């Protein structure tokens, strides 16, 4: 059986660049999830952006109604080459460039909006702008109240 047959659903339109699949209804955990309160699928949007674009992205997300996010300072590279640092007689090719990693979990319906919004806010057109990834989230819990899934976001 193919993945799609067992899932019994067609891919959602417009979501061409990432794959979406409902968990199989055959496993007990999946059954529990399927019966969970406010069951809408959630997605983790993970974005690597240039550090100076953080404020612009944050503003764009807030205006969409996104309630919170996690930000970390990371280093990395893609196609962007590093800089050469020179200390007296020593030259160092520094491949890892400072970037900011942004993580936000949103409900399915908002994923496209948010992803597009991040992309346009963080774009400069120059090499090293970064990437956006979307990842499935199985469960979410608000620690203070115990609310789960959609209510936890």
């Amino acid at each position, binding site marked *: 059986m193919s993945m799609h047959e067992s899932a019994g659903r067609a891919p959602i339109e417009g979501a061409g660049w990432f794959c979406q699949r409902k968990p199989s209804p055959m496993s007990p955990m999946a059954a529990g999830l399927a019966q969970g309160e406010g069951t809408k699928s959630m997605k983790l949007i993970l974005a690597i952006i240039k550090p100076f674009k953080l404020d612009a992205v944050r503003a764009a997300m807030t205006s969409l109604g996104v309630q919170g996010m996690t930000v970390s300072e990371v280093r990395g590279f893609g196609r962007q080459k590093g800089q050469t*640092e*020179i*200390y*007296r*007689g020593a030259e*160092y090719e520094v491949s890892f460039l400072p970037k900011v990693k942004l993580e936000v979990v949103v409900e399915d319906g908002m994923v496209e909006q948010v992803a597009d919004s991040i992309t346009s806010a963080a774009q400069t057109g120059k090499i090293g702008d970064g990437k956006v990834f979307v990842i499935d989230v199985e469960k979410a819990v608000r620690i203070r109240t115990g609310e789960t899934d959609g209510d936890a976001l």
Partner: protein
Amino acid sequence: MRLFYKSLCKPMGLMAFIWTALLLSMDTALGAEAKPKLDSGDTAWMLTSTALVLLMTIPGVAFFYGGMVRKKNLLTTVMQSFALTCLMSIIWMVIGYSLAFGNGGGFNAFVGGLDKMFLSHMSTDTLNGTIPESVFVIFQMTFAIITPALVCGAFADRMKFSAMLLFLGAWSIIVYAPVTHWVWGGGFLGSHGVLDFAGGTVVHINSGIAGLVAAIVLGKRYGYKTENMAPHNLALSVAGAAFLWVGWFGFNAGSALAANGGAGMAMAVTQIATAAAAMAWLFAEWILRGKPSVLGIVSGAVAGLVAITPAAGFVDPMGALILGAVAGIVCFWASVYLKNMLGYDDSLDVFGIHGVGGIVGALLTGVFAVKAIGGTSGLLEGNPGQVLIQLEGIVATILWCAVATFVILKIVDGLVGLRVDEETEIEGLDLNLHGETVQ
């Protein structure tokens, strides 16, 4: 009324004449005895200088070097400066001062004696010129402290703490104290006329050569030329360089051992030479490497400070300007090009800045010395022989220091091993040698 005053004139004049004559004759009587008295101005300045020079090591050298190493070795690096401050204080008190400034009897051309061991000769009343002996001892102690602290930069990131203490402890007795005696303690270099105002040979050529030998004996750091060994915090190095610059006023102007015009001139030429060297390095780097760097400008400043050290009490501002500029360029070349050409890993350029800077400074002292300032003429005033005398001082110091350093290192290697193992070196010395880290 006027008549009354007029009548007083002659007796008043006579009294004034007798009073002046009495004073002058008293002065002459005192002058004939020629016994220096405690001068509170000199003493106050020398007490201050001592504190300034101590600040050069802690935190000057500690920060200067600390900022240049990787974060995993920061504590090790500052520990070296601090521990040596403590160790050298004890050694100097026990035997160092005596070997440097004591009376060596038949061997006095080469080393002092044991007559001043444990500073037993010293009381609150003992004088050294116009200042208390205690002040002179501790002032010189701060020089004995900073010299080994400078050496540590050459073997940064790879030497065992125990080995470092043993090596530099022995070095201060076998190399530092005797060379000090040669130049300032009544030894042969001083009596041959070598001009070294504040320690170009004693401190800088000594530490530079010892550093070079140690760098070669210990070998290159693991990952040298392939790993990223960029300084982890140059702001810290700038802070260290600032402490060095300001403290150096105590180092150079304090070497006048008096609060007078000589000290003032020494301070002035120190400032001028340092600024000239810093700008020279800055521009050399800007032109040849493309960008003027922070590490470059502070290195240039230190190179200037090093080079003016032997010259501080002998040259005038113009000489200082040229001396500084030359030192900046030559030390830049030595640290950036010579080191890479010859392939040794002098991690923090102790030889490139202190060794080469000290040699350049000592030679140029022989060129720019002005009789009106320091009592001796240099090449520009028609005394080319002074350059040769300077060369004697340079060569003697290099030979003794290089050979003795090598032997001490080999002995310490046999006793405890000099270098940390590869795993420790890769993981970082802070955690492995001292059980501490900076987060």
